[in-house]
């Protein structure tokens, strides 16, 4: 036979065989399907309804550990997501996870704590009894409330209280170093070692400002911020008030102190009275000059600005915490030609004070004011101690910037690790609990 015809003949036979095989295969599959359907129907009639639901695969690797750096009332539970925790799992798809716990005692049953949504792989039990051991169970819940096989922690875990929050260890070290340096310099100053503190123009002008008010026969306005006494800037303002009140008493100038908080009024009265007493002028003290206006921010600003326009004080001090009213007060003072000295711990308000006042205490100058004005060596020593803090900050900034630059340029993994540690651990005062 011609080889070409033979090939064609063979090919025809092959195609026919394949068709027959395909028909046979289809028939076989149909028979199998029918049989499967029959058996499934039989099984369905025999089993309870609950077992028919699409049971999701369980969560794996359940782990429970004591929450670090806490008061001993919390345990962190974590697990690996069920393989069915994805939308493509169809009827098996996990809807959520049920977390239950039981105490490590005989006959204790699991009590359900909460059901978290699908995709969650951690849970924090914040209602533990300290030192009590617990087992945890995680059950994946599917559609139609189908439940997976439970995953239980292999061993019990206890919630333990830590004596020290080691997550804040680095912060504690920095605090101890800075405070230690401040105390060291205070001690050095007490021993008579001379310490040089730079001149602060705003504070050097305090005496001149009080003297000017005396010469002009006008009063001095002192606003110790608008916040309560629990704000350290208010305390700083009150400490400066003490010096200003003493100068006012010595110069026989009138001092007006409107306050926005009752407690500040009480503290300011005590301070001013003591200063007048220290100056040998207790008779000149007038409690009515230190008064409460209102707790309302703009009500206070309106009252003080109104008083300024009517009384035209020669000098105005704004030392404490200020917000939007800073410019309202400072511009009014500027309009009446008062010599103004301001300082605040709110950086956003500093430009307003700089624009409208004669002198502005920036940054730490407000907090240094009391020590500076007192001139006491031990107080000035505390200012020198701050320089150690500045050095630490400077070194940390330099190291951080260098590391960040190296990471950006070279993508060095070691530098990245050090940078991450610096940012995530050293400079993080309150790290979150590990999950």
């Amino acid at each position, binding site marked *: 036979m011609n080889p070409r015809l033979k090939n064609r003949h063979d090919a025809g036979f092959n195609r026919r065989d394949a068709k027959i095989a395909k028909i046979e295969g289809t028939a076989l599959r149909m028979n199998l399907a029918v049989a499967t359907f029959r058996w499934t129907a039989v099984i369905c009639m025999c089993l309870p309804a609950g077992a028919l639901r699409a049971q999701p695969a369980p969560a794996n690797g359940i782990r429970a550990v004591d929450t670090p*750096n806490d*008061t*001993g009332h919390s345990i962190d539970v974590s697990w690996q997501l069920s393989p069915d925790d994805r939308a493509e799992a169809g009827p098996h798809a996990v809807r959520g996870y049920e977390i239950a716990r039981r105490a490590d005692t005989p006959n204790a049953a699991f009590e359900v704590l909460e059901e978290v949504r699908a995709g969650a792989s951690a849970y924090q039990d914040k209602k533990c009894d300290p030192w009590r051991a617990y087992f945890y169970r995680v059950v994946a819940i599917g559609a139609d409330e189908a439940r997976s096989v439970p995953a239980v922690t292999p061993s019990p875990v206890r919630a333990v*209280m830590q*004596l*020290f*929050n080691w997550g804040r260890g680095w912060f*504690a070290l920095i*605090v101890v170093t*800075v405070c230690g340096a*401040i105390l060291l310099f205070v001690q050095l100053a007490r021993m008579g070692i001379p310490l040089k503190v730079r001149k602060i123009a705003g504070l050097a002008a305090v005496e001149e400002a009080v003297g000017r008010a005396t010469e002009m026969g006008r009063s001095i306005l002192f606003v110790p911020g608008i916040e309560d*006494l*629990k704000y*350290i800037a208010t*305390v700083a303002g*009150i*400490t400066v008030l*003490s*010096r200003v009140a003493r100068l006012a008493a010595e110069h026989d100038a009138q001092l007006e102190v409107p306050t926005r*908080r*009752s*407690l500040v*009024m*009480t*503290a300011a009265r005590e*301070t001013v009275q*003591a*200063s007048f007493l*220290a100056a040998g002028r207790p008779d000149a003290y007038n409690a009515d000059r230190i008064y*409460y*206006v209102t707790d*309302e921010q*703009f*009500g206070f600003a309106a009252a003080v600005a109104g008083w300024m326009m*009517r009384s035209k004080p020669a000098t105005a001090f704004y030392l404490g915490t200020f917000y*939007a009213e800073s410019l*309202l007060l*400072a*511009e009014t003072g*500027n309009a009446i030609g008062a010599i103004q000295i301001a300082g605040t*711990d709110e*950086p956003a308000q500093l430009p*307003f004070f*700089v*624009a409208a006042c004669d002198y502005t205490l*920036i*940054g*730490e*100058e*407000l*907090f*240094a004011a*009391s020590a500076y004005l*007192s001139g006491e060596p031990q*107080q000035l020593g*505390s*200012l020198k101690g*701050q320089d150690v*803090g*500045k050095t630490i900050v400077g070194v940390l900034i330099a190291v951080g910037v260098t590391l960040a630059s190296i990471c950006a340029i070279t993508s060095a993994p070691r530098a990245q690790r050090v940078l991450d540690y610096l940012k995530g651990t050293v400079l993080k005062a309150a790290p979150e609990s590990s999950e």
Partner: protein
Amino acid sequence: MKRTVPLLITAAGGIVLIVSFFVPYTESWGEDATMWFDILAAIAFVLGGGNLLRMHLRKVLQQQAGWGFSAITVISFVVTLGVGLLKVGVPPAENFPNHAWSGVYNAEESAFGFAYEYVFKPLTATIFSLLAFYVASAAFRAFRAKNIEALLLLGTAFLILLGRTFAGALLTAWLPERFSEFTIPELTVTIMNVFVAAGNRAIMIGIALGIASISLRVILGIDRSYLGKE
């Protein structure tokens, strides 16, 4: 004694707050200390209100300068306090419809609510809105180009102001894509994120160190000027 006790309270309060930050067991102590402060502040509020009333009443009675303002203050104070305490115009609460005083004192329909909404709020808004004029006058004074520094300040301020307007975007819209960083809005963002942020952080670091220093002085009793002692 008069100064020793406050000094001890200050020291104890300060140390407790520091310790509570580092020792988990004492975490709630800090919260308790803050709560005590709030209680004291609430009591002092009565003191402040009493002082306000006494001072302005005296001004009115003695007809001192500006006594008219004091009269308005006293009337406003008494009326607001009265309508608030007596719950004038307050509708009863839904759960207790038969009890006239069951509603909240500052309900919208009440006299207190009316005074707050239509008297107090417009007044505070008026004072706040004055800020716009004060900002303009302060800016006019601050941005006078008297020397090189002032000129730099003026130039930067002008750039920032321009960058926040549509005109800023429009003026440099012709720049090709590769020079997009030099458009006025982008320059504004750079100035704010780099120069201003750096300056702000420097100030804040100084403030933080200053707070540490003054806190230590107050806690250890080195600085007692707030108690009136040198």
